């Protein structure tokens, strides 16, 4: 059994208003060192697969077909 951890974020070129609002609030909190905030989604999947590569392939398919919308989002998959 493998665990796929997927991070989905808005593509860098796209304005992230939620991240911007959170950044603004952090500034108000006095955390002036925080320079940029991007907010995304985190997805964890348990995958039954014969190898790490197979688990990676399955997670890729899941991301490309459903979990992320590649028109506006990037994703990163870590398999454990």
């Amino acid at each position, binding site marked *: 059994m493998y665990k796929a951890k997927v991070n989905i974020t*808005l593509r860098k070129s*796209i*304005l992230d*208003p*939620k991240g911007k*609002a959170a950044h603004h609030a952090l500034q108000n909190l006095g955390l002036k060192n925080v320079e940029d905030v991007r907010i995304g989604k985190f997805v964890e999947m348990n995958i039954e697969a014969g190898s790490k590569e197979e688990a990676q392939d399955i997670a890729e398919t899941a991301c490309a077909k*459903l*979990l992320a*919308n590649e*028109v*506006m989002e990037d994703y990163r998959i870590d398999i454990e």
Partner: protein
Amino acid sequence: MAKNIGVIVFPGSNCDHDAYHAIKHVMNAEAKFLWHKDTDLSGIDLLIVPGGFSYGDYLRSGAIARFSPVMNAVQQYVKEGRPVLGICNGFQILLEAGLLPGAMLHNEKLRFVCKNVHIRVESTRSQFTSGLTKGDVLKIPVSHGEGNYFIDSDGLKFLEENDQIAFRYCTEKGEIKEEANFNGSVSSIAGITNLEGNVLGMMPHPERAMETVLGNTDGITFFNSVFNELQIA
């Protein structure tokens, strides 16, 4: 022969009855509901994918609805060149299904916006807008939190070159200005068609602007255009 208009109902649709009412009681045409598990679209002359919050907008607006059984039938229906109108969440579903290009982001200012806005007719190429005049301004309500239309610059160029932009947000006088683009959409886009012109997605709700008692009847102007071309009336 009477024409049939189908309104798809997903779990979480909430403008399905508005669309049904507008078609049946204001436009006096035949309307029927189609459940998201239906797969038979025979005899349907116009398909409406209504607004709402299908599947609670989980993951992304429209992302889950796209996998409903009826959507395979909708793909086939579109391939056959038959007309599909997606309103609000319906537009989002058509984007997720790949039937229209682009994607929807959260409104730039993160607010859910529910008010009358003005949209300008940018193209009369499609079967939905052929009865309108380019430059016409319609007052139509919007009601969405994720209507910030996004497409990359190549995609936008393609839309423009192929006359696929149906509506843009504008001022009351029909000017395209930043202040009228309340949700931050690329190029003030409020509605687009597919290349073939048989699929229209739009964020504003014409079905909510059908009666004097509700203070706005510009939706009738839009549906008259749709109905004339499809010879529904």
